[in-house]
């Protein structure tokens, strides 16, 4: 470090380490003012600086034919043809949601939408990935209720359909729930807005809601673990106002139709600080703000408070001077503030004035360029033994199926998605409940397939395999609806990175993701990192949540998971070895969370994905579903429920067919179940490309399920078990 530790340092370094404080002294050549220290503190928080993760994030593939803009901007942008672009990102709101589930989740949705429309896209779909503690934990029910209510409350009001998501329960989330929200937007490829400032002298304009003392230091909170008194030290929670957000979307998009905007950036974590520093920093410019001009809803706010406030529904932009009046008029129509609060300068400094006094005067570039970067020590996760099917007890298939289908991780999520408006905008082709949501584009021809996925139990057991599996599962889900997987966004949810085991999980997951993205030509275009998801030293199961986006050139060709007709061939694509390590069967029926997770063969994933897509495009399939959690029989049961028709299943009598319970419930990767009127044609096509495909049965006219000719269970019973769990669990809500 350049300077010796100063003799005098403030008692409260606001979360900065001693070394980091020294760095501040070196940059400024003097002691920071209170406001300046606050700015360094939030900008160098884990949340804003990615100081523990950047080294590893950089290894991910981020380019490709269809990538218009990869990580580094507010959201990623991909080319979807015909001059259209899809813009998307996922973001976590874990800590706020644990403290105040409704507002935490709601503001998470609001925040990620701003990241997307700030780039010029109209948000067309939202998704969310949720992780809650054990259902029997006293806090779980209330968190589920509040989070779901909050996501719906915000998304429904702004009129963006929430079309998909995933929800898991595990005791490791008892003290740290995960709330990851994803937004997908649509823009013209030549009308994308970035955050790089240009043009010294240009006005810096604040639009949207007024600033209050909401969530000051939220970014720092997201960068620290909880301890027992966290619930006491609650910072002011941000309250969302979806109505204002809706107006802000319309006003911004209307202004974006014109040539007024030089650059624009939402005020997310670290509010006015990060937006102004990032804009100026990217443009290599200075920025001067008169904080007295900031619209405020509380009196007596200090420079520090104004800069660090995380009030919601606000944006910062640089306008062409001659367009200010026009912008003003648009925002007036929507009854939103639109105020010039400063200008760009050539000084390279951020200068803040409040009541005529300079409260900060600091060089912009070093705030990001000299931000601390850590190569934290990490320890690889020890490999787990492979569990042989013979060593796992076999349970009656019908009982096992019913148990699994009613288990917290596999039970129907209808209770959740029916609280989300998933139909508004009138383009939802595949509603929640299938493999991926499909949203039609306004041209009525193309469609986007959207999904979020992650299996934390695999990641905990073997981070590399788990990271890889999360990526391929989204790839499979998109392929299963006939979409070409284009790119992903990722939300890395982990524990405390200062612990080498946790850092090892992070490094392993990233490596697995890297390998999968490279092999599948499926780059990462945006993402988010949430560390310190830990309470009293108890870390969460690592959750690198992947949000996948796929393209359907002809949306009418998509297929869903529902059985359609009686007597159709049921074919499995992909080999079944009967892998039970880390399976839900092992956990739910044998009470064991053990073993190595199923391996992922990237070449096979790619081949099978391509095959399924080609068959869907060729109109050969009537239904398609990937096989994942719970294995083959669970996948078949889901298809039966969706189509309200049963099936006859025949176990192959091959030499290498695994024991029945492993064949039915093993979680081998790379598999799809498809149905077709012409089963022979499917088998031939599959065999032609060297894919493993086997006819395992046929659909029925009625609602019974049979296994080798013996009755298994009726659809009615199955439905009652599957649909019953979550509503009856939540009915005990107080």
């Amino acid at each position, binding site marked *: 470090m350049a300077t010796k530790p100063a003799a005098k340092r403030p008692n409260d370094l606001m979360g900065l380490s001693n070394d980091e404080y020294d760095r501040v002294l070196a940059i400024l050549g003097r002691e920071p003012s209170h406001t300046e220290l606050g700015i360094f503190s939030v900008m160098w928080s884990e949340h804003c600086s990615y100081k523990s993760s950047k080294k590893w994030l950089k290894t991910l593939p981020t380019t490709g034919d269809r990538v218009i803009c990869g990580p580094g901007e507010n959201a990623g942008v991909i080319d979807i043809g015909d001059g259209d672009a899809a813009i998307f990102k996922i973001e976590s709101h874990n800590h706020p949601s644990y*403290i*105040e589930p*409704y*507002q935490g989740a709601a503001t998470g949705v609001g925040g990620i939408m701003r990241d997307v429309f700030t780039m010029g896209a109209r948000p067309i779909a939202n998704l969310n990935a949720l992780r809650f503690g054990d259902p029997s934990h006293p806090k779980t029910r209330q968190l589920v209720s509040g989070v779901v209510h909050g996501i719906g409350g915000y998304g429904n009001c702004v009129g963006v359909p929430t079309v998909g998501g995933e929800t898991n329960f595990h005791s490791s989330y008892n003290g740290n729930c995960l709330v990851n929200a994803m937004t997908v937007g649509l823009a013209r490829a030549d009308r994308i807005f970035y955050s790089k400032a240009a043009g010294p002298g240009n006005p810096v304009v604040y639009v949207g*809601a007024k600033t*209050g*003392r*909401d969530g000051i230091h939220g970014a720092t909170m997201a960068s620290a673990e909880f301890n027992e008194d966290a619930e006491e030290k*609650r910072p*002011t*929670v*941000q*309250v*969302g*106002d979806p*109505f*204002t957000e809706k107006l802000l979307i319309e006003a911004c998009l209307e202004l974006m139709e014109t040539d007024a905007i030089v650059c624009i950036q939402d005020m997310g974590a670290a509010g006015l600080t990060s937006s102004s520093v990032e804009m100026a920093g990217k443009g290599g410019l200075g920025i001067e703000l008169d904080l007295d001009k900031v619209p405020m*809803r*509380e009196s007596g706010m200090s420079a520090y408070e104004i800069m660090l406030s995380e*009030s*919601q529904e606000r944006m910062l932009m640089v306008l062409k001077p001659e367009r200010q009046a026009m912008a003003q008029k648009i925002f007036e129509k929507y*009854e939103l503030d639109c105020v010039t609060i400063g200008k760009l300068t050539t000084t390279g400094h951020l200068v803040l004035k409040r009541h005529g006094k300079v409260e900060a005067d600091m060089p912009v570039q070093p705030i990001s360029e000299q931000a601390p970067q850590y190569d934290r020590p990490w320890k690889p996760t020890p490999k787990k033994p492979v569990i042989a099917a013979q060593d796992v007890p076999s349970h009656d298939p019908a009982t096992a199926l019913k148990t699994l289908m009613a288990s917290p991780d596999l039970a129907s999520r209808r209770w959740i998605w029916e609280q989300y408006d998933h139909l508004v905008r009138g383009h939802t082709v595949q509603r929640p409940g299938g493999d991926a949501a499909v949203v039609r584009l306004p041209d009525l021809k193309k469609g986007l397939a959207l999904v979020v996925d992650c299996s934390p139990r695999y990641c905990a057991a073997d981070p590399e395999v788990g990271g890889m599996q999360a990526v391929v599962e989204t790839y499979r889900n998109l392929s299963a609806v006939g979409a070409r997987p284009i790119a992903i966004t990722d939300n890395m949810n982990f524990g405390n990175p200062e612990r080498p085991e946790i850092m090892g999980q992070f490094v392993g997951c990233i490596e697995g993701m890297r390998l999968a993205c490279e092999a599948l030509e499926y780059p990462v275009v945006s993402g988010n990192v949430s560390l310190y998801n830990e309470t009293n030293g108890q870390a969460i199961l690592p959750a690198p949540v992947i949000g996948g986006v796929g393209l359907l050139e002809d949306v009418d060709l998509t297929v869903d998971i529902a059985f359609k007709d009686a007597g159709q061939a049921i074919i499995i694509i992909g080999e079944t070895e009967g892998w039970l390590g880390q399976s839900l069967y092992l956990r739910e029926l044998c009470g064991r969370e053990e073993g190595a997770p199923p391996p992922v063969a990237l070449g096979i994933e790619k081949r099978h994905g391509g095959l399924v897509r080609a068959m869907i495009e060729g109109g050969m399939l009537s239904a398609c579903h990937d096989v994942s959690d719970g294995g083959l029989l669970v996948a078949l049961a889901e298809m039966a429920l969706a189509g309200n028709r049963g099936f006859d299943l025949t176990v192959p009598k091959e030499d290498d067919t695994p024991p029945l319970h492993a064949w039915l419930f093993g979680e081998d990767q790379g598999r799809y179940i498809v149905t077709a009127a012409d089963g022979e044609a499917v088998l031939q096509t599959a065999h032609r490309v060297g894919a493993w495909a086997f006819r395992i049965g046929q659909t029925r006219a009625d609602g019974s399920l049979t296994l080798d000719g013996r009755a298994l269970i009726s659809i009615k019973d199955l439905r009652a078990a599957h649909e019953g769990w979550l509503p009856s669990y939540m009915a005990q809500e*107080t």
Partner: protein
Amino acid sequence: MKAKVHVTLKNGVLDPQGKAIGHALDTLGFKGVGDVRQGKYIEIELAEKDRAKAEAAVKQMCEKLLANTVIENYTVELVG
């Protein structure tokens, strides 16, 4: 006995409802309307005859259910 509970947002917490109401009053032509805040008002019939006990119980209800003490304050008043 009846408990009258008021649940209001803490100072400084954004009140989108209050804001919208204030704005609407303005549009309707009411002049001189300043800050508007909206809260909840809950009436609870209680079997309890003992005032002190009733008050303690209702406070507990507020802490546990009626108010979200992260962002809200509450007051309890007993009548009858």
